[in-house]
């Protein structure tokens, strides 16, 4: 397992809970952003005594400044471990996901956030599970759990109902949910499933492999079996089929983007490898 790469993330709004962390929250405590004034009687903290405000006060009370505390959030990674995720030209897509999970664990630890793992194929996978944790090794544990339980390729389909299973297992506390999948599935019930996640910020990470999206260069006969349905497709690779292939991929990409944009969500596309800088940039653009 390679050295975990860190990425930065910010969330819109005030998602934080009670535990101190890196995100804006509504909790009152030691922080930098001013919230209001309170009477010294109610908030006996003479260090924050605001003399000017106290002088201006009509009722002649001593007023103390109250700040909002930066808090931590709970992050959930929900990974699609269906048969299609085992596919990959040089590395399987699940290996790329492991890289990401590793980086996520490290980044979450650096942000002081708890991170947990869930997985699904056609339903929630109980064997691949980690409750939200804040410890330093959470990312490594999650990546190992994922690797150990996906050694044997399954023939199970990934589906939105499996994802919905996972959503029902989440507590209300999760603020940031990564949906990691190739989304090679019908998207009919997407809006309903997204709604199940409530107010959480959802980041769909679309994991594709270069072998999927770019046809082989050489002409010839390509006999292909679908990893999930077992259906066969015979192709005689030539310029026209290659063009059609690329067109299909870009159409799917826009279909996915459109389906998520309808829910006010931007998908993050990850092809072949995990690039932490791109993900950081994604969060910066999302919040600013």
């Amino acid at each position, binding site marked *: 397992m390679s050295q975990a790469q860190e990425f930065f993330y910010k969330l819109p709004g005030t998602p934080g809970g009670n535990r101190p962390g890196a995100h804006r929250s509504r909790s009152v405590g030691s922080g930098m952003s001013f919230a209001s004034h309170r009477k010294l009687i109610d908030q006996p903290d003479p260090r924050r005594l605001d003399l000017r405000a106290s002088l201006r006060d009509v009722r002649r009370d001593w007023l103390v400044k109250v700040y909002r505390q930066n808090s931590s959030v709970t992050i959930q990674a929900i990974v699609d471990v269906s*048969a*299609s*995720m085992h*596919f990959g*030209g*040089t590395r399987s*897509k699940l290996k790329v996901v492991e890289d990401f999970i590793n980086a996520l664990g490290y980044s979450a630890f650096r942000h002081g956030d708890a991170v947990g793992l869930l997985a699904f194929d056609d339903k929630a996978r109980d064997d691949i599970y980690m409750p939200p944790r804040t410890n330093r090794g959470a990312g490594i544990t999650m990546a190992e759990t994922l690797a150990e339980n996906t050694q044997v390729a399954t023939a199970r389909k990934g589906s939105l109902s499996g994802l919905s299973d996972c959503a029902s297992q989440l507590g209300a506390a999760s603020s940031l949910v990564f949906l990691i999948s*190739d989304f*090679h599935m019908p998207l009919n019930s997407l809006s309903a499933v997204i709604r199940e996640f409530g107010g959480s910020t959802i980041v769909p990470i679309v994991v594709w*492999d270069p*072998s*999927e999206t770019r046809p*082989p260069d*050489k*002409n*010839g*006969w*390509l*006999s*292909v*079996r*679908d*990893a*999930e*349905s077992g*259906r*066969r*497709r*015979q*192709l*005689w*690779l*030539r310029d026209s*089929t290659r063009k*059609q*292939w690329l067109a*299909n*991929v870009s159409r*799917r990409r826009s279909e996915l983007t459109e389906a998520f944009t309808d829910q006010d969500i931007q998908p993050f596309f990850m092809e072949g490898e995990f690039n932490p800088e791109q993900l950081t940039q994604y969060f910066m653009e999302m919040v600013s």
Partner: protein
Amino acid sequence: MLANISFDKLPFLLLLPLVLLPLISHRRDALSYSWTQLLPQDPVGKYVEWLWRLLALLTLLSIIVGLAGPGRSETHIERIGKGAEISIVMDRSSSMDAFIHRNGANPGKLTSKQDYVAVRKQMSKNDVLREALGWLLTKRPNNRYALTLFNSAAMRVTQFTDDISIVQAALDASDIGRGPSKTNMGRGLLAAIEAFEGRSYSGSRVIMLVSDGGAKLDAKIREAISEGLKRNNISLYFIYIESSPNSPNLELVGTEVDSTLEEVALHKFFSGLDVEYQVFQAADPESLTKAIQRIDEQQNLPLTYLERIPRTDYSQWFLISAMILCGLLVLLSMTQRVNWQ
């Protein structure tokens, strides 16, 4: 035609259901792909795959059928011809190499060089006889012929056959060299009779004995010949080629010919047999041809015989086609992508 197809090793046909293997679509060499809906629809690819299946099916079929060893089984075709089964018994002793003389002229007494040259141009009895028999062969190709030569011993050159080219070749071969001086006609005749032994009677049977002289037959052989001819119902034609002006005229025998001569004794023995017998006297090529024409006219009854057609093996064609099909399969498979790189 198809009904005659037979198989050498029939159990191999039990493998025939294997030809359906290519139609079962669980191909292991198909590359796994995450979501085939992303891929374009390609009719050409489908045709290529069906071509592969078809080739594989035909290959298996050819191999299995080839292994089973198909062939047209040996058959006998019944043919009906006109004529007879003619066994030619030909004297091949040295006297037959002598020139046949014309109009009583004696080739031994040459008066001038021109005469000598003329004599050289003459043909030996053998040549004339061969020519006349060759004519008979071409005239009556439907007959079945056997050829037996005899001098000091009998040589059965060909069995009964309706392939006149074989008989013709045997006749041509008798031209080579000179024969020994002894003549053992009895053995020649017995060998010819023996050739008829055990054959079904499918048409009139003729032994055509061609000789330029008589032979002494002892009592034992006479009895064997007499019995053999009778048992097998064989007609005997004796073509007697006159060697010299002093040769007896056998056609007139019984009135004024000296009966101590070998030829006459033979003729008398043949006449006394209980079978159809005729003698033809031939003094020169023309009369010899005439004699054979007369035989031709007489033996013209319908002849039924079975022709044997040997087994033809087709398995090599199936194996060759299997090889070619395998080559095509390899070519097609070479175009197939085996990985994503």
